[in-house]
């Protein structure tokens, strides 16, 4: 599974983005998207195209975590959203690995199940990689979002940060990467 995570301000300005791969099921944490490396902007296209749905859901559902809100079938990209009370959007694009994957990471269920039994006690780990819409995935994404939210709150409490500013702190990036490793 490959992930592309982005934070957008209430007026849709990108504040932060990061791409990473799963660390569960023996994943090495490196993103392998289906788009060629020369077309990484596709992630941004797909994720931004779901903003309309976010804005619709924003006023119908008072939860902060909006769960899985959009799918882009041609790329098998699933998008989950989280809204802070102040309207900042956290969007996570997840893309399961291509079935005829030639790389050794993820992919085969045989490999992932054997690894999850050995390396991780979390029962959800294998299903996170296997099925992007399962309740376990929703839960893992929720945990990830909550952890990012905590760090986001710490960022905005900094007196040198004003809402709408790009988040440049390398420590924040480290924390998001760690949250991705922990939950996804």
């Amino acid at each position, binding site marked *: 599974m490959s992930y592309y995570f982005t934070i957008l301000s209430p*007026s849709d300005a990108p504040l932060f983005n990061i791409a990473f791969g799963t660390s569960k099921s023996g994943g090495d944490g490196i993103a392998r998207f289906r788009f060629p490396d020369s077309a990484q902007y596709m992630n941004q296209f797909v994720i931004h195209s779901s903003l309309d749905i976010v804005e619709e859901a924003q*006023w119908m559902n008072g*939860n902060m975590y909006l769960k899985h809100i959009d799918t882009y079938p041609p790329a098998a990209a699933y998008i989950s959203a989280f*809204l802070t009370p102040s309207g900042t959007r956290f969007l996570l694009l997840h893309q399961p690995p291509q079935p005829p994957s030639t790389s050794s990471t993820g992919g085969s269920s045989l490999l992932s199940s054997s690894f999850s039994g050995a390396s991780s006690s979390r029962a959800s780990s294998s299903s996170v990689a296997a099925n992007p819409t399962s309740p376990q995935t929703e839960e893992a994404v929720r945990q990830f979002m909550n952890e990012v*939210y905590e760090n986001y709150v710490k960022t905005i409490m900094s007196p040198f940060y*004003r809402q709408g500013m790009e988040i440049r702190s*390398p420590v924040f990036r480290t924390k998001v990467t*760690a949250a991705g490793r922990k939950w996804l």
Partner: protein
Amino acid sequence: MSQHPRHSAMLSISTSNSNLANAGADKQQPSQNVSTPTQSSSPGLRVPSNRKTIYDRHLNRSRTAELSRASFAFLFSEMVTYAQRRVTGIQDLEKRLNEQGYPLGLRLLDLLFYRTMSSSTSSSLSSSSTSSSPPNRPLRILPLLHLIHGPLWRLLFQRSADALEHSVSPETPNEYMITDNDPLVNTYISVPREMSMLNCAAFVAGIIEGVCDGCGFEAKVSAHNQPTEMWPGRTVFLLRFGDSVMEREKVLERAGVR
């Protein structure tokens, strides 16, 4: 969508953390950053001597901590004095105080939700009106007002506001009033007679405005003196929601959103 017209003006201090900008230049290698969490390799970033950045501190650390009222009073007094420099009039001064409070409101909103979320066991913050273990973003005006009246006021002043009213006049259905009998910020302030219209709680009005705007409720908030025999410092915060909010309110009411 919610408009944030002031954000462009709020970027003025961004130059002060140019050292962070330098450090962010090497953000293309996140995998390296993991192994050296304190970033000793990047030259621009300065880490405190105890190696703890703001990200290593817990946000609930100061939740029950007490703050000296005197130090706040002196700080606020200096803020008023600062805002008073080169003002053209009372309205201008109130506007400046309001602008000082506005970014604070935006921050407090997220902090408030984080604390309500993380402390499901505590009862101090989850109010009677908006309490539910996973807190909901306010979608309608009334939950928003309860959020301000209860949890926000408790976060700021450790007590609820004293009254919450809707304008009785049919011409102004978009006006709501929150009353505080004795605003903390005004405790030690005596306004000179020639400025009797001034209320320094315009700062708090700015905080409320920030919270409303942050939630997507465009509003103008102002503070007004309404002294009574019992409460000489009684202050009414008048919230005037924008037309877009009122229109959305009607749509949401028809859709049955609460």
